[in-house]
């Protein structure tokens, strides 16, 4: 390849079985077509046949990829994405912020593809062009935060350390030598300039919803990329890059970038509490807060939600803010837990962010006073509210430390709590753990069982729907499955569908990452403007390919289609990258993602067997709050939603069953990799 700008034109294929690294240099047309990140990763999953249902997710053949887009590196608000086949069998596209993606670009790579399985625990060290597979036996079993601290200092670039001491007493003055002679034993290079992606014990034990974590709390959430790394005996990837990034039109790139940062600096909303700012409002204004496994979506007494508001959390626990490279939004806050309970007191973690306060805080019943329901007035004071916050933070901290997803995990534990509430199961079904609403000690015990896959934890580690089916069969009560809140056999994240002020249930059915909350187009969906929704989804798909932050783009509006196109052009020099090319990337993302999950899971009828897997609760009336009685925009009628779904597929140019047509695939230029798969449903 000629001189590459933005991208580097090189992807490393690391075979852990053969301990061999090869370099792939994709054609420039491949980059232009798939851009990078999520879409480029999916292209390789199709090309290499990982999409086939015969490839077991935990087999060495499955490929774990971390992919960058042309803006990763010098541009602000950049993230990393892991692309692989999820333990659940569907597509895994899992994102997180942090510094490591930037460092991988500066090391000169567009991505890493990891195949095979190491005999013993290993980590991959990337130092510019040099990629080594190193022993990580001593780190196996350590939590994400502790292991990262250790891994970071083990990877140093040649320009930052010396393995032999050169300093002698003759370099110093005699008086100086007398009081502090040089210490030849002391190693030089006490720096932490590397970036790390790694798994915790949950990933090692192949818990299906294990995450790959970076910086202690930034998790590549959901879909189980951590379990795939664990199945390959891969503890982590450590990256140190010193080569920098080449840009086609640097001056223009910097000027757009400065514009974005300057706008970000003025955003009071993002710069004050990040997503912690929306907690109260989600409950009392939008009524989309997951409470007790979605039985409620807001509290009768607004004071109950106070514990999970930005200002309250700030007053009680925020210590400092933390940002991804180049970002002035700093949505993450480092916190310390203060509690009268010694188990929780003193723990260091992050905020909780919106998903954590929803899926862990509200969903596990942490906010209400003991013995009360969300329909009761709140009787506690600010100390009780602080305890509720502490419980949420402590549980989030456990999930992060073990490297496990708290959306699927929180939904799973809330589901078990509801089964207990309804008398379907008792402590005897959960190895003696009595899962009462709001009992943080019981939650602590069950999380530890899941991570170790001990006893019942071995069942729970396979996620919400497998657990639901296990209990339905064990108890001989098939109705149990309806309490599993989710779609496409995967847990619903913390945005409610019933009030129609937060999400339209159709959004969760149409997204290609099962039941994701960041698919874009939510506003249009709620207005049943399906064309607008598709535009929003395609936009989000492009940002996922670039890979830039949804807070800065879809939600913050600092990146819009125009400046993204200009940025990509300035970075890469692709003069033909226009609005049409931009939208086509989004369409490819949606076509490939849909086909991957349908094919990999051997779905016979996409509508009946896949799209109709939503829970009845979506259409039941809300019991409390400003939208009491609301039953989604479809007013409790799933058929109306399915009619909209058919309309949606039509607008996408897909078949009635929601499969891209031959013409569509040819138009998108992906017929060569996808037509053979799609034709089974034509």
């Amino acid at each position: 390849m000629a001189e590459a700008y933005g991208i580097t034109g090189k992807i490393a294929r690391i075979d852990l079985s053969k301990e061999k690294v090869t370099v792939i240099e994709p054609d420039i047309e491949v980059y232009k077509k798939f851009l990078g990140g999520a879409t480029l990763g999916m292209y390789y999953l199709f090309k290499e046949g990982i999409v086939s249902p015969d490839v077991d997710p935990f087999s060495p053949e499955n490929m774990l990829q971390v992919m960058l887009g042309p803006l990763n590196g010098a541009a602000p608000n950049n993230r990393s994405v892991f692309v692989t086949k999820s333990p659940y069998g569907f597509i895994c596209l899992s994102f997180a912020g942090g510094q490591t993606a930037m460092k991988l670009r500066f090391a000169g790579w567009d991505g890493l593809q990891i195949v095979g399985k190491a005999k013993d625990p290993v980590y991959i060290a990337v130092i510019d062009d040099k990629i080594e597979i190193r022993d990580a036996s001593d780190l196996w079993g350590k939590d994400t935060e502790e292991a990262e601290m250790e891994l970071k200092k083990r990877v140093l670039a040649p320009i930052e350390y010396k393995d032999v001491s050169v300093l002698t007493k003759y370099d110093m003055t005699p008086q100086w030598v007398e009081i502090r002679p040089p210490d030849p034993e002391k190693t030089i290079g006490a720096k932490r300039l590397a970036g790390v992606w790694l798994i915790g014990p949950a990933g090692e034990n192949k818990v299906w919803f294990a995450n790959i974590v970076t910086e202690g709390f930034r998790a590549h959430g959901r879909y189980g990329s951590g379990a795939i790394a664990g199945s390959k005996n891969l503890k982590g990837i450590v990256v140190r890059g010193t080569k920098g990034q080449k840009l086609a039109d640097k001056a223009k790139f910097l000027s757009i970038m400065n514009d974005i940062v300057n706008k970000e600096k003025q955003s009071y909303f993002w710069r004050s509490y990040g997503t912690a700012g929306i907690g109260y409002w989600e409950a009392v204004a939008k009524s989309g807060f997951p409470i007790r496994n979605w039985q409620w979506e807001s509290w009768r007494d607004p004071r109950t939600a106070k514990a999970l508001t930005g200002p309250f959390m700030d007053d009680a626990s925020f210590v400092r803010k933390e940002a991804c490279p180049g970002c002035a939004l700093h949505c993450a806050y480092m916190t310390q837990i203060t509690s009268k309970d010694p188990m929780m007191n003193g723990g260091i973690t992050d905020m909780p962010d919106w998903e954590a306060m929803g899926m862990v805080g509200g969903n596990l019943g942490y906010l209400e006073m003991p013995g009360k329901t969300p329909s009761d007035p709140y009787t506690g004071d600010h100390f009780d509210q602080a305890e509720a916050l502490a419980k949420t933070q402590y549980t989030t901290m456990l999930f992060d430390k073990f490297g496990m997803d708290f959306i699927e995990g929180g939904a799973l534990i809330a589901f078990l709590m509801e089964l207990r509430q309804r008398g379907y199961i008792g402590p005897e079904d959960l190895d003696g753990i009595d899962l009462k609403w709001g009992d943080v000690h019981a939650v602590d015990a069950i999380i530890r069982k899941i991570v170790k896959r001990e006893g019942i934890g071995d069942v729970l580690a396979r996620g919400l729907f497998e657990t639901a089916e296990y209990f339905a069969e064990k108890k001989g009560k098939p109705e149990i499955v309806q309490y599993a809140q989710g779609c496409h056999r995967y847990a619903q994240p913390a945005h409610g569908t019933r009030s129609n002020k937060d999400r339209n249930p159709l959004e969760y059915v149409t997204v290609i990452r099962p039941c994701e909350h960041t698919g874009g187009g939510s506003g249009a969906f709620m207005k049943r403007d399906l064309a607008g929704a598709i535009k929003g989804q395609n936009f989000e798909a492009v940002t996922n390919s670039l890979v830039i932050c949804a807070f800065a783009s879809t939600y913050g509006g600092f990146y819009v289609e125009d400046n993204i196109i200009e940025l990509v052009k300035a970075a890469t020099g692709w003069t033909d990258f226009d609005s049409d090319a931009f939208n086509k990337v989004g369409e490819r993302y949606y076509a490939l993602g849909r086909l991957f999950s349908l094919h990999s899971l051997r779905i016979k009828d996409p509508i009946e067997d896949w799209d109709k897997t939503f829970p009845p609760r979506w259409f039941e009336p809300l019991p409390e709050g400003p939208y009491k009685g609301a039953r989604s925009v479809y007013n409790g009628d799933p058929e109306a939603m399915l009619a909209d779904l058919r309309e949606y597929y039509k607008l996408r140019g897909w078949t009635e069953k929601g499969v891209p047509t031959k013409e569509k695939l040819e138009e998108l230029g992906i017929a060569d990799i996808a037509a053979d798969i799609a034709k089974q449903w034509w």
Partner: protein
Amino acid sequence: MSEEHSSESPPKDRISRRQFVAGAATAIVSAVVGGIVGSQAFPKTVTETVTREATKTLTSTATVSTTIPTTVVSTATKEVTKTATKEVTTTVTVTPTVKKTPIKNAMLLINPVKCTGCMLCAFACAEHWIKEEHPELAGDTINLEFSRIRPMRFQYVDVVNVCYQCRLEPYAEGSDKHPCEQVCPTGALHTVPEGEGKEGYYGNGYLWVDKDKCLGIDKCGRCLEVCEEQFGSGISYDPITKKAQVCSMCGGMPVCADACPEGAIEVVAPGRNGRVYAEPPEAKAELYYMKLFGVRRDL
């Protein structure tokens, strides 16, 4: 008169009542006083008005901007934020660029509570130095290795490493040089006296590496070793030439402090030996854990 300056004033529909009144008043005054005086007074008045409003918001740098509509604060839905952002984007930059004057005997102090580890300081520093030292790359390359200020993340704390201008104490160590300067075998690392050197890059009594004399990391590395063994971590190496790099305080006008969106980098002349501030990165992180979280960690 007011037509002449319309390009500098905010768009018509954005002018607040106060700005309009102030502007109009100045226009009347300047019409009386006369051409030259008036043309200076007009933008100045506008600047002051805007500045007073802007102090309510988060502006910390020299760029003055209008306040964000308060709707952003209370209603932050996806849609509302989007529309609100459109309003936010209309920035009004009225402040004329103030000529910076170099500060002598200054050093950089980093506030670990304010710092978010966003690395904008390092991006600015690297950009500054690539222009000076590798002009052939400056047109198309961004490389953080040219930065003299190096943020390092220790998960929940960020440590920003930079030269703290340590000096040896003559009564105890027999020299008042910088330690790295003292151990440099070729005299490459030296202090450029006040009044000499290139403006905005080095001089004014700050450290500077003579690249022709420096032996580089492969042959030497004494400055790095003494810094990390006994002081902090202020020395880095050029990834291309492998020669030492040290903060020269941009000759007393540091670009990193201007780039910081949080106001976490202070340029101060504390009048004491900088070595009291210096710690190696992990020690600094361990101290920050004590300060911020009240825990002792062994990193």
